[in-house]
């Protein structure tokens, strides 16, 4: 129970970063932090005590394995997170080239 609460605290730290930080790169970092916490919650859900890693040894029979479905979901979500991070970095570098700053508030009033 405490692990899930700690994951949610990590999610809240990421959310805090998203709302308060003004630096483009730090907003991307806090987005990644929220992603890390959600991925961890998903994998924690699929964990089974004394379960083996989901690689079946053909010889043995009837082992208890960890649930592979949340792992497949998280693998997909990690690559989605990479996709959005890549496009955000593209915009961040482009805005930096134009305004010479990563600060979102300065970019707003340099709108010209």
């Amino acid at each position, binding site marked *: 129970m405490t692990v899930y609460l700690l994951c949610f605290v990590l999610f809240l730290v990421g959310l805090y970063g998203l709302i308060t930080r003004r630096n483009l790169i730090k907003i991307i970092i806090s987005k990644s932090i929220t992603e890390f916490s959600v991925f961890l919650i998903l994998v924690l859900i699929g964990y089974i005590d004394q379960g083996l*890693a989901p*690689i*079946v040894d*053909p010889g043995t029979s009837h082992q208890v394995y960890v649930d592979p479905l949340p792992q497949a979901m998280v*693998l997909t979500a990690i*690559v989605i997170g*990479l996709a959005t991070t*890549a496009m955000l*970095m*593209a915009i961040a*570098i*482009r805005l930096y*080239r134009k305004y010479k700053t990563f600060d979102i508030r300065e970019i707003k009033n340099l709108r010209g």
Partner: protein
Amino acid sequence: MEGMSIIVKKVTQLMVGIIFMFGIYIILHGHLSPGGGFAGGVLIAGAFILLILAFGSSSLKLKKEVAGSSNTESIGILMVVVMAVMAMLFGAKVFFFNFLPKGEAGELLSAGVIPLYNIFIGIEVAGAILTIFLALIIFKEESSK
């Protein structure tokens, strides 16, 4: 973009081959050991990124590479979709059906279509991440000119 010091270049020359082979190993053994199309593809892209960072290259050459990598990427994903539809044509008339024989579990050539999907998804992921990195490097160089 200028390359790095001679030591980094030498170490990269030694390591890039191994990283590349390891990526291919991960893709081919996707259905036997952990990893698969995604992890292997990123590893192969990592090998190329290491090469570009260590040796640096003019933006002109990079532009040709970007065209090449985005084409391989499109071909990779196109093959995945075509294989899915092919399964529909003569499998059990169902999208994404595993129509090849499953073979004996644990062998390299087992699990029917899965190794093929692994290979094409690996190609697609390697092409995509290389395209993203090259696009960033080209923009950095072009705009600083």
